[in-house]
């Protein structure tokens, strides 16, 4: 491979730029409900996002990265010409990044997941041939885009109803909140760590058995519940604040839960979306390292995930904080109790998708969660026109990503060969 290093360097530059874009643009959507519910300040949101997006990318980003890397293209048809895959992956990265830029410029909602998947399928189908696309797997991914918002909606509805039953609709909601919120926090910690550990942390030097995974997850959950209990006990009931709105004090307890949920959401987002940036890098590095052979079973180099995690954090710090600031600290219609239900539902769905290697849209999943709470009559007003725009965005994003990727593919091919 004569241009091997150029390819890797190019891939890293494009991939890093893409990660930067995710950090700059996408993280704000993931943090929207948490900041909007007023439970965390913008500054705290940025700190939480930086830490948990990075850990999510590094610890749980592997599966989806493998899917993007080699799950959608049948490489047997190009065994003799591996450079085609390199051009294609570079083109896909470039296409997704350019689309992210264009859409952000015009203020359209973007799904980085849809653009990268569209781009990869596009270059493979046109640049290599229809038979090069693993349509079965691509179909499963497309299905997951419908299932994920639905799942989040159902979970959010159930969470909201459980909150009503256990806390809000009781003789003393404040005392009930103090009692049950630590249990919810345990659940958040337990589920997120369990899914992460199940999928293996071998790449960071941790090899755990199933029993160990359960045990450690439970310990993490209990630890988080205990720590939060300290904070919750500090919250004093101020009867005067309940005069105008009777649940002001209760919502203060939920704010603690919302903070924990925000961490889970950032973790989930990092674990799923890092792949959109580094999946193609991993593919290119894999080909180059195996000396031009398209290795099907090579392990994922951890530095690739690291690069993605760092890229997201830099995007967040250099530009994303401004986008987060536009959320404002308060969406009056979104109190922490519903923000929590919608966000945890989304975070859980996304983390499970990350564990099974499904690249899904975090924003779509979060919107599904919010709609779930809305259907439970828990939100004052939802703007269906905006929600339709968000869901329709993928209709444009798929062909746009594909079209751009095809163009870049032929340009790169003519430059290097």
């Amino acid at each position, binding site marked *: 491979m004569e241009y091997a290093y150029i390819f890797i360097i190019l891939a890293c530059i494009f991939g890093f730029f893409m990660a930067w874009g995710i950090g700059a643009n996408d993280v704000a*959507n993931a943090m929207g409900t948490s900041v909007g519910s007023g439970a965390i300040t913008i500054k705290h949101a940025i700190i939480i996002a930086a830490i948990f997006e990075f850990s999510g990318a590094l610890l749980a980003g592997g599966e989806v990265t493998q899917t993007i890397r080699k799950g959608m293209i049948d490489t047997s048809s190009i065994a003799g010409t591996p450079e085609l895959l390199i051009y294609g992956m570079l083109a896909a990265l470039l296409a997704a990044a350019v689309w992210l830029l264009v859409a952000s410029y015009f203020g359209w909602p973007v799904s980085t997941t849809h653009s990268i998947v569209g781009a990869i399928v596009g270059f493979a189908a046109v640049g290599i041939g229809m038979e090069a696309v693993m349509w079965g797997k691509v179909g499963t991914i497309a299905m997951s885009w419908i299932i994920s918002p639905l799942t989040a909606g159902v979970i959010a509805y159930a969470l909201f109803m459980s909150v009503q039953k256990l806390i809000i609709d009781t003789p003393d909601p404040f005392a009930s909140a103090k009692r049950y919120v630590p249990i919810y926090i345990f659940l958040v910690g337990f589920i997120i760590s369990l899914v992460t550990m199940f999928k293996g942390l071998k790449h960071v030097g941790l090899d755990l058995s199933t029993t160990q995974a359960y045990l450690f997850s439970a310990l993490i959950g209990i630890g988080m519940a205990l720590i939060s209990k300290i904070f919750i006990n500090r919250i004093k009931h101020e009867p005067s604040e309940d005069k105008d709105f009777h*649940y002001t004090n209760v919502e203060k307890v939920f704010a603690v839960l919302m903070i924990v949920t925000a961490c889970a959401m950032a973790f989930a987002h990092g674990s799923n979306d890092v792949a959109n940036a580094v999946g193609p890098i991993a593919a290119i590095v894999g080909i180059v390292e195996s000396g031009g052979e398209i290795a099907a079973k090579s392990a994922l180099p951890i530095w690739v995930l690291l690069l993605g995690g760092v890229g997201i954090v830099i995007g967040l710090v250099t530009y994303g904080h401004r986008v987060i600031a536009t959320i404002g600290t308060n969406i009056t219609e979104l109190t922490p109790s519903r923000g929590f239900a919608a966000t945890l539902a989304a975070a859980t769905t996304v983390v499970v998708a990350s564990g099974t290697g499904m690249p899904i849209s975090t924003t779509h999943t979060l919107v599904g969660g919010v709609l779930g709470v809305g259907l439970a009559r828990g939100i004052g007003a939802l703007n269906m026109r905006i929600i339709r725009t968000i869901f329709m965005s993928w209709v444009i994003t798929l062909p746009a990503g594909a079209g751009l990727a095809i163009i870049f593919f032929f340009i790169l091919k003519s430059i290097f060969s």
Partner: protein
Amino acid sequence: MSNYVFRMFGSSPMRPLQDHMGKVHLCAAELVNFFEAVIAQDQARITASQQSVVELEHEADKLKKSLRLSLPKGMFLPVSRRDLLDMLTMQDNIANKSKDIAGLMLGRKMELPESIAPLFLTYVKRSIDAIAQADTAINELDELVETGFRGREVKVVEKMIKTLNQIESDTDEIQIQIRSIMFKIELDLPPIDAMFIYRIIEWVGELADLAQRVGSRLQLMLAK
């Protein structure tokens, strides 16, 4: 650049609806002062009080218009949009009716016969009580959203509506009493004056009716 997750939250109509009802309540409550002035035959106070009623009605009108504009189609709400808009119209009718009462009485320089005056004041106050009770019930709307229109909170509101209905039937009884006194004295009054007093009796009763209808609309919302 805008955050779509943020933009998907529309502005909730509950607080504005509560604010509107609060304003309507203030407007109608001014009628107590107005009738006291009428009974005391204090012209300056009558004029000033009618002026405040008009101003408060005007303010309520502004709130009504801005709320209507903030409720375009395509909003997903926890209650039906139709019910909300109907409720707003009924609330607004309370303010309109208050303005009509004060306007007519000022315009025709109406006086209340001594034999019905004290009872009439009670009648007005009881009608305002109905409006106050409707206001209290409407004020639970944001709590209803918090509880997803379920459980204890719904029972609390239902109880409030029950009280509202009781107050309304009180006003009906007082109205009957006033009418029976009027029947005895009406021949001694200038016929046109008597006719207009009957009209005011009717309108004050309508205030309580409207308050009750606001309550029943709220009950419909609970049941959605």
